[in-house]
């Protein structure tokens, strides 16, 4: 067991990790999110699917306030994210995020990418952080890349390092923003494998993805979003085998 959480393989319905109520977000006159409400439980893996421009990424980025919600309430681990007065940095330590374009720190090697936040935020001493970092690199299969710079890695390797970097802060929640969309097809598998393992180990995960196979296999729940609202949600079985909403049916027809 390398990550936090004691093998809570199924969602713990008694513990709401993320509570979202009536979330809206506008960029100028463009209403990207038009009232989203959902609860995400401890250990649950939620996949968010939907067409481009449906607001999936914005929804995800509101959870750790990389985007500030226009209205509505977001509570993560008991902290009201929408509250201007909370110590946002403290809350973010507990929410890992993985980006479509990896965003590894280009001025540091892989090891220092993983050590920066734990050491800088005094979560660990240098030695502890290094030990954790090396262990995490082993889990994602990149022990030999500790001294490499991001520019020397392939896309798949970068994304696995990015996942390890987020895990180095031992977060309770992991957000994935289209983690495989910028990868060559042959590298998608290695990243999904790491994510699957993470899901098995009981991490609470919100994954915005176009990988329907992953969603079907790993998700506890799938949200289908379009035009800023959740049109349909349910188990992967319900969504993929018997979708109800015509828009969902149409979308799945196109992508499957």
């Amino acid at each position, binding site marked *: 067991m390398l990550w936090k959480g004691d093998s809570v393989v199924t969602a713990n319905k008694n513990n709401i990790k993320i509570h979202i109520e009536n979330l809206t977000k506008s960029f100028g006159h463009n209403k990207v999110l038009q009232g989203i409400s959902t609860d995400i439980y401890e250990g649950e893996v939620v996949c968010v699917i939907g067409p481009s421009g449906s607001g999936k990424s914005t929804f995800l980025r509101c959870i750790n306030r*990389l985007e500030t919600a226009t209205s509505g309430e977001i509570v993560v681990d008991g902290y009201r994210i929408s509250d201007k007065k909370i110590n946002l*940095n403290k809350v973010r330590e507990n929410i890992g995020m993985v980006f479509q374009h990896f965003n590894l720190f280009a001025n540091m090697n892989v090891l220092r990418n993983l050590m920066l936040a734990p050491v800088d935020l005094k979560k660990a001493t240098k030695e502890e952080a290094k030990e954790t970092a090396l262990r995490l690199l082993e889990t994602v299969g990149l022990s030999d890349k500790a001294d490499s710079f991001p520019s020397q890695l392939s896309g798949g390797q970068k994304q696995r390092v990015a996942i390890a970097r987020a895990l180095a802060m031992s977060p309770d929640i992991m957000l994935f923003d289209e983690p495989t969309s910028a990868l060559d097809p042959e590298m998608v598998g290695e990243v999904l494998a790491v994510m699957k393992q993470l899901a098995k180990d009981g991490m609470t995960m919100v994954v915005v993805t176009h990988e329907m196979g992953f969603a079907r296999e790993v998700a506890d729940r799938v949200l289908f979003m379009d035009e800023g609202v959740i049109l349909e949600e349910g188990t992967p079985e319900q969504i993929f085998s018997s979708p109800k909403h015509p828009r969902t049916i149409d979308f799945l027809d196109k992508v499957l």
Partner: protein
Amino acid sequence: MNQILSTYGPLMLSAMGQTLLLALCGLFFGCLLGVVFGLASVVDNKVSRTISVIYVNLIRGVPMIVLAFFVFYGVPYGLRTILGVKYTLTALQAGTICLALNCGAYMSEIIRAGIQSIDPGQMEAARSLGLSYWRSMFRVVLPQAIKNMIPSIVNQFIITLKDTSILSVIGFPELVNKAQNVIAITFKSFETWAIVAVMYLIVILALQQVANALERRLSRDRKQK
């Protein structure tokens, strides 16, 4: 030529010393201003961004020779007639203020552009891990930005060094000012200006060499670390 060099060489060398002194003072405070206003122009705060824009546009919109006259003659005169305060600046003080204000405005633009050239994803990734804005800036964004800025910064150093010659108009005893004295005595303007030109050239080429070495070193460090 020989006669000028042997008679006025030491004078011109010491005048070059004054030029370098003024340039160093101007660059030092100019860099400080540049960093402050450069950072002020990228933070998420309308007031600080506006102040920065006003400063940059104001300085860029006024020729430095006008600024020099204004600071050296205009401001003390204004203080005396309007506020009744007697205060005068030495030529070095006024020169430093002019150079620093001027250099600072251009430096702040170099720093702003350098920071904005870094993918915003770098800042987002650092923030998502719980690092504060300034920690993310100093640990992640700036180290990358500075490397991109170096050629522009070196360029600005050279421009500022040459701009010291403008301050001959307020009587600061730098190289151009002294050269004019030499010509007034000897009438040998061809030789004198040729010597002055070569002196500037040598100093600036030397500065360029130092900068090149620094740049090479930084890019080598990057690869090795």
